[in-house]
């Protein structure tokens, strides 16, 4: 049977990128514990509008944990306290009556605040544009079964490819590092036979683009803890290994030309 919760919210409100921000307190009473966290925010917003107050902007779209749009800090934790769960999949039954919930946007230099809880995560796209692809123009492909890929390899690529690009790893990291995201993207492609031709060029380009935007990794592991897809820290090790190799190989290639 569903329960009714009365909650106190402290929500970061900021009118624009270069505007000052502050916490506002809202009473969220009469919330069914069947509601999702975002539906709770919907209810608060409808009440704000009824009171002639500007509603809270928060990021969301699919509400199924797959598009990577949602993501806020809930009581200091990226996507809240439930492991392996995106903000949109968090339900109010994980909270208790009388709780105070602090809601903030991702905090990272690379992710400037757009408004309230919404940030700009475009540096993640810049990392992909630098090399996060396999060059395969339309019309050039062989039959898909020409390349046999052992199941274990396909599975490992898929484990990495499951990343939804939400940026929680960056938000959770004390240094705002982009390693978990970048390594997941690199390992998806580097682990597959199709990705070998560009393996080292890709790794170097993506890592160096990442470094332009994000802080450095000092092995805290907070990223993987916060990741809604539980992307493994191992990928960071693989990325570092490939990066070192890339530096050697690419230098050798450069000296040959």
């Amino acid at each position: 049977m569903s329960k009714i919760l009365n909650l106190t919210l402290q929500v970061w409100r900021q009118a624009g990128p270069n505007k000052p921000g502050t916490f506002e307190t809202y009473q969220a009473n009469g919330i069914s514990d069947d509601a999702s966290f975002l539906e709770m925010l919907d209810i608060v917003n409808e009440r704000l509008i009824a009171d002639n107050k500007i509603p809270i902007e928060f990021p969301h779209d699919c509400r199924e944990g797959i598009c990577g749009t949602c993501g806020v800090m809930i009581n200091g934790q990226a996507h809240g306290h439930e492991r392996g769960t995106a903000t949109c999949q968090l339900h109010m039954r994980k909270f208790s009556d009388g709780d105070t919930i602090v809601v903030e946007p991702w905090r990272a230099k690379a992710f400037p605040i757009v408004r309230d809880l919404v940030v700009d995560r475009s540096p993640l796209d810049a990392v992909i544009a630098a090399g996060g692809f396999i060059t395969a123009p339309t019309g050039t492909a062989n039959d898909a079964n020409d390349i046999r890929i052992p199941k274990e390899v396909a599975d490992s690529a898929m484990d990495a490819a499951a990343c939804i690009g939400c940026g929680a790893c960056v938000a959770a990291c004390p240094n705002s590092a982009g390693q978990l995201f970048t390594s997941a993207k690199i390992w998806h492609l580097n682990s597959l036979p199709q990705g070998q031709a560009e393996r080292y060029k890709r790794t170097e380009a993506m890592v160096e683009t990442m470094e332009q935007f994000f802080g450095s990794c000092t092995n805290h592991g907070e990223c993987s803890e916060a990741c809604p897809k539980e992307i493994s820290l191992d990928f960071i090790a693989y990325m570092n290994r490939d990066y070192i190799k890339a530096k050697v190989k690419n230098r050798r290639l450069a000296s040959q030309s």
Partner: protein
Amino acid sequence: MLPNASIPEGPIADKWDSHKFNVKLVNPANKRKFKILVVGTGLAGASAAATLAELGYNVEAFTFHDTPRRAHSIAAQGGINAAKNYRNDGDSVHRLFYDTVKGGDYRSREANVYRLAQVSVEIIDQMTAQGVPFAREYGGLLDNRSFGGAQVSRTFYARGQTGQQLLIGAYQQLMRQVGLGKVKLHTQAELLDVVVKDGRAVGIVTRHLTTGQVSSHSGHAVVLATGGYGNVFYLSTNAMTCNVTAAWRAHRKGAYFANPCYTQIHPTCIPASDDFQSKLTLMSESLRNDGRIWVPRDRDDVRSADKIPEAERYYFLEEKYPTFGNLVPRDVASRNAKTVVDEGRGVGPARNGVYLDFSDVLKRDGVKVVEEKYGNLLEMYERITGEDPQKVPMRIYPATHYTMGGLWVDYNLMTNVPGLYSAGEANFSDHGANRLGASALMQGLADGYFVLPATIGNYLTDFLNKPPVSTDDPVFQQAEAGVRDQMNHFLSIGGTHSPEHFHRELGKLVWEYIGMARNESGLQKAIGEIRALRDEFWKDVRVLGTNESLNSSLEKAGRVADFFELAELMARDALTREESCGGHFREEYQDPDGEALRNDDDFAHVSAWGWNDADTPQTEHREKLEFEYVKLTQRSYK
């Protein structure tokens, strides 16, 4: 007048090849002189933009999302069809073609569907080459499954995240072109008008969602790959921001909207739990392979499921359809669930669901087997409802899932407005009155990777060395002014209810009258009530804040305004189509067993509606459908 659909002559198997040979080609050195605007960066848009740029065209891509990888395509779970016949189980291009025409209840164009089946084979090769980690067997070959009642295994998949992996593939190809400077990408740019000059599409007007800036973009051709309109129902399995605005604004500028009443309801979704429900979650159809669907026989029975003895359970699908049982097609399963819930037999706190029970298979195969097969789905269900489906039966109910209707396009994917193209779910092309599972991803990628890049040149060659119309031209200035006026108007109404409120109320009307089952008086009533609510919306909507900042209420107001007009057209289209076919079930047209009754003599056509003005209903144009290769039969699942 509806233009000719440009279907090539010759035997069906040769049409696409001969068409590719016959279309005018653009010389490689000239391609960069043509600017193409691609709106939408889901599967259809991202693949089109990337491929057009590879060919050398000058491409600009637009999405209102903050990155192309958020498009709703990301949420597709089940898989993608292709006539590879890797299983050697009798599949072929012809069989996929046949199944798709039949599945669409004989309301699609044979030539388009045949091409789709042909191209499907190349899609899998292309996506594999890009690094999509499709499921593999231990021998390293691609795995397949049978999906949605198909009798062959032709569905390729990547765990339960096929759409995500395909979209990441197409997005990566797009980002490669962005990195190379071949595609200019505009994110957070929402198309709010299509600009037409001398009868041709010459550009678009967008509003930047975080700054409110309204700007014009001109090109030689415009492609709309902006997805489906399922959110007209408010509650659907679509992502929250899916909307009809791009297609609708094109419609208002003259593009015909075809078959709007063809909407697909998916039988296995989690029922709404309360008024605050914001969307519905799809549970994969594969659950029906092992789950048994039932409700209490006695409508006053409020005991918990485990207290209801076998004899007092009504397995309505198994009883009514002994051959197919729980595996009847989506529309049949959905309608029957609605019937029992309407009869007062619904289960759950809101009595708005039916049980999908795993206890038999748990007993037969054990927990481990069930977890392996359905683990992530069961977990997803538990996360949302707080109930463990291994202990209490799941509750499911149908929800809107896909829209077969959309912008009318010819064989080249061009709308009736020259220079304006449409791809993916946004067009009406290939699925007739009902889409088969795992065929939307196929169609989006077929359109974007293979069809559009081959056909668009035919139109462009006439414009060689003619620059696009300047954005200083009065047509652009007027369109921009129109967009600004609409924004300012919303902000000035100062009514009492949010856009969300009106959307929810509209959705209730659409679901009630233009949902799973429709009838004449309901549809008449719907038109009146939708109009009344629309008038109230324009008088009483409350949009706070400003235009010059991120303002999702303001965005929403524009989208809801378009949904109102679309909903009315859906009702009109459903009213005009006096037959039942696919996703369109008119209660007046059913056989004594309650099965849909098609009327091929009078309704084997596409209804393409042309805009008049906000107060004059659209004019219907009919495209007759000819069937040369497929014999029209009535479905039976008894």
